[in-house]
């Protein structure tokens, strides 16, 4: 490590900040790009059906479509409210 490096290390490099921000953003955009266009709409309608019977809020549901080889899996995750508290 040189003398210059010592001074350089003392301030956070803006390039590393840029890289970190980019990596997060690009990963997110790639995953949303690969989703079919109907997924958000499907999620909305499913939520409406479930809400007819159970009192769940919007954040309690996640939907995910995964592709492994020839098989596509639609994964639906709903966190039901605690029955004792209702």
């Amino acid at each position, binding site marked *: *490590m*040189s*003398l*210059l*490096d010592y001074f*350089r290390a003392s*301030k956070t*490099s*803006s*390039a*590393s900040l*840029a*890289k970190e*921000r*980019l*990596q997060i*953003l*690009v990963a997110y*955009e*790639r995953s949303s*790009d690969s989703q079919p266009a109907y997924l958000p709409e499907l999620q909305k309608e499913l939520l409406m059906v479930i809400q007819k019977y159970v009192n769940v809020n919007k954040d309690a549901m996640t939907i995910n479509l995964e592709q492994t080889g020839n098989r596509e899996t639609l994964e639906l995750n709903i966190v039901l409210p605690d029955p004792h508290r209702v």
Partner: protein
Amino acid sequence: MARIIVVTSGKGGVGKTTTSAAISMGLAKKGHKTVVIDFDVGLRNLDLIMGCERRVVYDIINVINGEAALNQALIKDKNCNLLSILPASQTRNKDALTLEGVEKILEELAKEFKYIVCDSPAGIETGAHLAMYFADDAFVVTNPEVSSVRDSDRMLGLLASKSRRAERGEEPIKEYLLLSRYSPERVRSGEMLSLSDVQDILSLHLLGVIPESKSVLTSSNAGTPVILDEKSDAGQAYADIVARYLGENRPQRFIDDKNGFFRKLFGGK
């Protein structure tokens, strides 16, 4: 068999037209019959960079609409007789370009030329879509800067899904990275994304790094592709890029900064 190269980036101002002009001239100088097409209908600029703006009579839209024959619209380059330019229209809008029209032009050009270089407009609309749709190879021009890298990644997604090769399920478009406006000094001081930072995100085959260079502006002022300025670093970078694309093995340059004396003094490597 002709090879169609699209020069693309998504973001504007990163050096697509500079690159299109340089590599098409480079390919022609290497003895390959080459044509470069401006797809930026309404905002044409390739003619200016190539220095043929006063010789434009007909343009690509005239050819598509049947108002002129293809060889009437083609302009022979003044520096190299193996290079031709097909200008964009300045008066119409981008929707004047049609898929069928472009396909027909490319088919006709493929009979005569070895390389067809498509200079894409910025953005992801009709002009950009048609510039890349028929491509065999994509030169993705990226600046070491967040918005440019993000847009390049978006373009890679489109190349993989919205091209003819993708739709037909053929071998995908070959994608190459051209990292332009690179400043090793600023990378070293931590101000600029480095080549490896960009590669960590895009992971493309690197065709070359083009350093930030004064000669790009002076060449465009004069209307000569920067590759003809053989003494300039940017000109040499483009010459390397063309040679590597054609299969020559040339070591990468312009990645490390030049002032080795001070770096040695302070222990840099």
